[in-house]
């Protein structure tokens, strides 16, 4: 009997299981294979903060959502079409998100009395009517894997650990994906442990074949490749990785060696880890004793003529503030990457929020202006990192680059840049003593970068206020006024080299939605769909440069009747815009639940605003 294959355009799958169940690996494998098939995709990994929350409990549930599509998409999807629940806790934490009539695949092997207890369930949700209205596919995956691996030299515990590959195989079958890429990956991953490679391969094949054999599904699906994708070379990329690649590229475009001083913190750590692998690029990575030392080594390296960089997340950014002031005062190039996470203090370390904007803009003593930009997506992180390097080098200034947890761990296909065509911005380090003064200025108000080791340019810099041009310590009140103005004007001057962003959608409309950072996808999807399906008069403006703000925003804002600013915080960009453009009214729309906006939330809010209900 042949099983029918139905074509679908857009699918959202969520894998959920215990944090030890390998859901992230499963999700990443499905993602890589899907990228190779040529779908557009977006992912949203969601893991618990504790490395090992008690197995089987609600706190230990780890999730990975992937959306893949035959068309261009911007988010990881609001509502899963399919939920794979590896145990009772994973089911109960996730089933409510599934689309009505959606598929729930449940591993009945982990719904014993004991599992229900651990998940704090009085009755079995597979049996008590909880899942009415869903298509439930109950499979004892534990038993199936054990059967498939009968005779394997592995212990029964290790055999059970292969169950995620069984599930992966099953999903490959259901969505007509090839299993070869994962077979190859397993071979490479377990090159030194052939028995593990074997077992996982067997589990993967068993899962795949079970689709045909057991006929648990009425049909299979196919999501064909994106047709009108922009031609080019693509690869799948996660935000932290793209950012690391962007920093190395930025340094090369500046003709400089990259130096990273950092201290591990979730979710920024991967950037340090990726860069630590790039020794043959001359990249120096120093894992320091704390964040303060991280930024200070970077400042010391920039002083010595390298491109200093430091990476961190919120609490680490707080520690770096004093040193940022030093970098502002000494006017050295420096990149400070903040992968934002949720909550004050240690907050919700693995959850998303975009609430470090005001800290980035103002979180230093006195007036210490520096450029701030934020990336929108995983692939955009590459471009933003290059842009941050450009600004830092051309303007001799520290720059803050904001990313967040959603971008850091989310993946998407990345159209690779044509490396030879990237504009270069070689650093101009001075060597000529004639006319040299440490705080002389060029056309961009940047001071000359004279590096220790250069004969004849011996000079002193530091955190004390400097006399204009000579750089001598100065307590002169007029000079402090002047230098403060120069520092302000220098940073504002960055506007001369950044484009005015274009609103997508109508040039004039009832509503403009202004966003920044990772909410880009949800806002973009939400506004596009409202225009397309309901003819709503709404446009979307995304801000990459948050300080200085680009020229021309005033005119753009004037073309729209109302302006809505959705943000994953309590009102930071809206406050900034309100202060900068007092003639317009900015309506804040905030969410701080540790989760990204869904496109639906954006649509509903827009509708409410337009109906005057908000």
């Amino acid at each position, binding site marked *: 009997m042949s099983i029918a294959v139905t074509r679908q355009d857009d699918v959202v799958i969520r894998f959920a299981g215990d944090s030890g169940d390998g859901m992230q690996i499963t999700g990443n494998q499905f993602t890589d294979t899907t990228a190779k098939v040529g779908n557009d995709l977006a992912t949203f990994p969601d893991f618990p903060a504790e490395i090992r929350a008690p197995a089987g409990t609600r706190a230990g549930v780890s999730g990975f959502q992937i959306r893949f599509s035959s068309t261009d998409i911007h988010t990881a999807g609001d509502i899963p079409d399919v939920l794979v629940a590896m145990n009772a806790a994973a089911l109960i934490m996730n089933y409510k998100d599934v689309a009505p009539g959606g598929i729930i695949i449940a591993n009945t092997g982990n719904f014993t009395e004991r599992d229900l207890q651990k998940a704090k369930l009085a009755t079995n949700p597979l049996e008590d009517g909880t899942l009415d209205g869903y298509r439930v596919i109950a499979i004892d995956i534990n038993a199936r894997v054990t059967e498939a691996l009968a005779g394997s030299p592995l212990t029964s515990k290790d055999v059970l650990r292969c169950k995620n590959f069984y599930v992966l195989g099953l999903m490959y079958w259901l969505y007509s994906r090839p299993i070869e890429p994962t077979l190859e990956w397993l071979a490479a991953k377990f090159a030194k442990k052939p028995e593990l490679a074997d077992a996982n391969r067997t589990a993967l094949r068993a899962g795949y074949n079970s689709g045909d054999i057991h006929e648990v599904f009425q049909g299979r699906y196919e999501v064909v490749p994106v047709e009108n994708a*922009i031609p080019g070379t693509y690869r799948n990329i996660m935000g932290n990785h793209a950012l690391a690649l962007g920093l190395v590229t930025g340094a090369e475009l500046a003709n400089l060696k990259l130096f990273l001083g950092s201290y591990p913190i979730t979710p920024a750590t991967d950037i340090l880890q990726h860069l630590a692998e790039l020794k043959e690029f001359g990249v*120096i990575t120093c894992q320091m004793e*704390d964040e303060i030392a991280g930024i200070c080594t970077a400042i010391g390296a920039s*002083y*010595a003529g390298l491109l200093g960089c430091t990476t961190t997340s919120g609490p680490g950014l707080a520690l770096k503030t004093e040193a940022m002031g030093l970098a502002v005062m000494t006017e050295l190039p420096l990149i400070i990457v903040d992968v934002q996470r949720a909550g004050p203090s240690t907050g919700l370390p693995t959850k998303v929020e975009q609430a470090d904007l005001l800290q980035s803009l103002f979180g230093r003593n006195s007036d210490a202006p520096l450029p701030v930009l934020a990336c929108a997506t995983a692939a955009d992180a590459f471009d933003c990192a290059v842009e941050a390097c450009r600004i830092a080098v051309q303007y001799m200034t520290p720059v803050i680059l904001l990313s967040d947890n959603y971008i850091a761990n989310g993946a998407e296909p990345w159209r690779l840049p044509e490396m030879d065509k990237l504009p270069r911005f070689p650093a101009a380090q001075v060597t000529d003593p004639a006319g040299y003064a440490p705080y002389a200025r060029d056309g961009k108000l940047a001071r000359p970068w004279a590096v220790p*080791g250069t004969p004849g340019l011996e000079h002193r810099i*530091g*955190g004390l206020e400097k006399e204009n041009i000579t750089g001598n310590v100065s307590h002169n009140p007029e000079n402090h006024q002047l230098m403060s103005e120069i520092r302000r004007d220098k940073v504002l001057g960055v506007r001369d080299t950044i484009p005015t962003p274009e609103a997508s959608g109508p040039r004039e409309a009832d509503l403009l939605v202004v966003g920044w950072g990772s909410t880009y996808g949800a806002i973009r999807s939400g506004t596009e769909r409202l225009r397309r399906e309901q003819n709503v008069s709404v446009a979307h403006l995304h801000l990459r440069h948050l300080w200085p703000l680009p020229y021309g925003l005033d005119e753009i804002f004037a073309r729209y009747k109302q302006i809505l600013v959705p943000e994953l915080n309590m009102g930071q960009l809206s406050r900034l815009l309100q202060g900068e453009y007092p003639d317009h009214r900015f309506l804040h729309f905030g969410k701080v639940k540790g989760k990204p906006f869904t496109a639906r939330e954006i649509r509903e809010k827009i509708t409410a605003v337009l109906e005057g209900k908000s």
Partner: protein
Amino acid sequence: MSAVQLTPKDLKSDQEVRWCPGCGDYAILNATQAALAEIGVPREKMTIISGIGCSSRFPYYMGCYGFHSIHGRAAAIATGTKTANPDLSVWVVTGDGDAMSIGGNHLIHAMRRNVDLKILMFNNQIYGLTKGQYSPTSPAGLKTKTSPYGSVDLPFNPINLALGSGATFVARTVDTNPKHIKSTLLAAAAHKGIAFVEIWQNCVIFNDGAWKDWSTKDARAERTIDLQPGQPLVFGKDNEKGLRISGGEVEVVAAADADVWDPTTAAPLAYIMAYLDEREDLPHALGIFRQHDKPTYDGAVKEQIDSLTAKKGKGDLKKLIYTKDAWQVG
């Protein structure tokens, strides 16, 4: 580095030196200029990085590169500078408050890593710049503006801290003996790796005479002993007394029976010399407590980069971005 011969004058900047008249910092500045003129490094390859405090004004007065940074962070900044360019001769000037209070973490880690930095810590047992609060080296009971009834803090012994952190060169000198400062700094410069040098320094304004029991010329002979490699451990006006260490105990013996000092030994003798400070009946030690040969951090970083570059070839950005799992559209 090409050997060059400078004069101390070459290492003066055009800035007016502004410490209180009589401050011990002047003597240290002069002695440092004299020493650095002789280390064979051209001015442009010398850089002095300091934190915040009276002592940390030092870079402004030196005719080489200088960086007056923020409180406590000089060791971290210098680690970045030296690692970025191991070809530079990087000197850190710091105070007891700067190095051991706010900067304690960076200090111990720079020493642990054996970054090839020369750290000069001016110890006046007080916060000078902020006008006289007790510091982490102030003796318990010291009355200051923040300890009007006497400080109840117990102090660090900087030498012990440095030894315990694994510093490969640890020495002590005193502002009243410029010749000793100079020879100590020359030894520090010659050492490949971190050099921690504590310099007893007198703050005439807020803690005058803190070291006088040991630092004046007369007191020095009787109450200090100079640890010099290969030299007998002798002291006294006519070098008539000596120290001998046996069974972990120190005893005073006739000069002829004194032990010979060897700072390269792995034995815990350096710690014992630091503990002399706690004994009223014994002289405090100056000179070189420890001098060990170990790979430097900056050297190891460079070596790793060089060897991996030799092995893998110079990094190709295009290959890094265009991996084999990339695919073509259109």
